[in-house]
């Protein structure tokens, strides 16, 4: 069988626009739009963000949703299990647990957020300076951190409480910030040391970028992805740290509740009134899980290499 050679006439277009560069159809996006688009793709992270929003909403409006307040004892309703009047039941002094949980959430979430953010910011700034400038600056800062880390943080806490007066949230946040930045500083310094020898940072320098430019535009964005997970991980530990401080009398003072305090006081009666213990524990657990998942999703979304 003989074959006839194919000519141009044997081909016909199968539709679609011809001669148009498919690239030109690509929509323009900005960095943050891209981050958001990819964040949404991560279902777990997206749901967690919604849960966090819900928690914040309940913390704001929850205490006002029933007629009880968090501090009035009512000895006629001691240790009631959850029912239609007291939605989460009552505690050993007859206080409404629903109200106390959300009232305590205000304290716990505020401390968790600010007590994580401030030490992180201080740590990043100091660690960034230390790593970037290196040499003697680095030596002095790192030895200072070594010394500060060698002193138990409780000692600062007690001293700060003496100076500022114990029991209010502002003091607690200041105390947590002052004692908590060293870890962040060390980790940031390590990352900066790794990055500053990389060619793209050297390129910034040869283009005339100042130290501030390089730290803000090149180093911090590249570090943030690594730090964001550990930032969200430290939120639950701050919540528990506050609980511990409350336990030894350095946290918020009763009758103002916090999740840590609720867990602590209910722990004594756990065998008889488990709901008093389980409900605040669940709040801490849900918060912890949500922040972790959001952190995870955020890290993936922030890094263009991990985007799909």
């Amino acid at each position, binding site marked *: 069988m003989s074959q006839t050679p194919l000519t141009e006439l044997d081909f016909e277009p199968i539709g679609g626009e011809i001669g148009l560069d498919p690239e030109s159809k690509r929509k323009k996006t900005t960095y943050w739009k891209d981050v958001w688009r990819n964040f949404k793709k991560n279902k777990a992270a997206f749901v967690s963000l919604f849960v966090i929003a819900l928690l914040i909403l309940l913390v704001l409006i929850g205490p006002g949703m029933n007629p009880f307040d968090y501090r009035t004892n009512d000895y006629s309703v001691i240790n009631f299990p959850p029912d239609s009047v007291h939605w989460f039941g009552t505690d050993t002094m007859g206080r409404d647990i629903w109200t106390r949980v959300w009232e305590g959430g205000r304290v716990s979430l505020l401390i968790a957020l600010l007590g994580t953010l401030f030490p992180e910011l201080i740590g990043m700034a100091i660690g960034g300076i230390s790593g970037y400038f290196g040499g003697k600056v680095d030596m002095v800062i790192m030895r200072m951190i070594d010394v500060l880390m060698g002193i138990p943080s409780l000692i600062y806490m007690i001293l700060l409480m003496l100076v500022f007066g114990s029991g209010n949230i502002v003091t607690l946040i200041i105390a947590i910030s002052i004692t908590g930045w060293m870890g962040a500083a060390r980790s940031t310094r390590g990352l900066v040391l790794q990055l500053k020898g990389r*060619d793209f940072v050297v390129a910034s320098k040869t*283009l005339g970028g100042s130290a501030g430019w390089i730290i803000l535009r*090149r180093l911090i964005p590249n570090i943030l992805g690594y730090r964001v997970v550990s930032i969200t991980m430290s939120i639950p530990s701050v919540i528990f740290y506050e609980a511990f401080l409350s336990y030894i009398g350095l946290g918020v003072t009763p009758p103002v509740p916090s999740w840590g305090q609720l867990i602590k006081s209910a722990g004594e009666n756990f065998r008889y009134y488990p709901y008093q213990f389980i409900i605040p524990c669940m709040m801490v657990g849900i918060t912890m899980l949500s922040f972790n998942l959001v952190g995870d999703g955020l890290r993936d979304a922030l890094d263009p*290499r991990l985007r799909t």
Partner: protein
Amino acid sequence: MSEPRVLLELKNVKTVFKVKQGILTAVNGVDLVIHEGETLGLVGESGCGKSTLGKTILRLYKPSQGQVFFEGRDIWSYSRRERKEYTRKVQMIFQDPYASLDPLSVIGDTVAEGMDIHRITNSRQEREKQIMSLLHDVGLNQSHVDRYPHEFSGGQRQRVGIARALSLSPKLIVCDEPISALDVSIQAQVVNLLKRLQKENHMAYLFITHDLSMVRQIANRIAVMYLGSIVEIADSEDIYLENRHPYTRALLSAIPIADPVVEKSRQRMVLTGDVPSPVNLPSGCPFAGRCPHAADLCRQSVPPLREISPGHFVACHRSDELPHA
């Protein structure tokens, strides 16, 4: 033809680093001149101080001795403003196209970084226009402007790096092994691109490489470096045809020849021993330990760089006695 104007001059530049074992001398008293618009090839094996020399010119390392003059001024006597101005005139292209771009920046922003730092463009539209024309100049698709570096191949990334270096219209670009990380077919493309850009923008290149066959395609003059010192410097063709230093000959003899019959039959000059450590340098000629022609004199005194014919300098005591190439 009038004498080309001197753009950059190194006078007895020495760059050292403190290491645990002592003092590491990366660049050991280099004298070098780069003229406006020329390409000076700088060749030598790994660790001979090529990159350090390049970075010393960029003011990334401060020489411990000697001076670097740019347009007649010592670059270490600059004021703060002059320092910033200097970064506009001297730029760098990096070896590793994977490490030299910020993974979090789209290439448009990477290319525009210099313009942003020096506040060159006044409006968004102007910035955009500049980026587009730079991408066009280096042969990149303009619709790639909002893509991230990981979406590109090595050759494309290197083009981004070149566009970034060009963005400030520099007078000198230090190309630190710009092609050694690339595929051979891409190497030629990038070299041709660099040549074309040089013609259009009248820039000078310091082209650092260890690839002798490629440097011939681009360099007007070639300097051969060994253990921190320049051992021979001459016009490109002279280095290949009229070379006088034994080290240059050894390097050239390491270039493989594409014809297998010639390759098999030719006599290669193979060096014995290793490069001495740049920590605590040997006395005398740095090459004496491995040189087949070394005499007592070579082990005792450092040979100066002498001009043996116009523009051809050799640092060898015995260059006159050796047979011609």
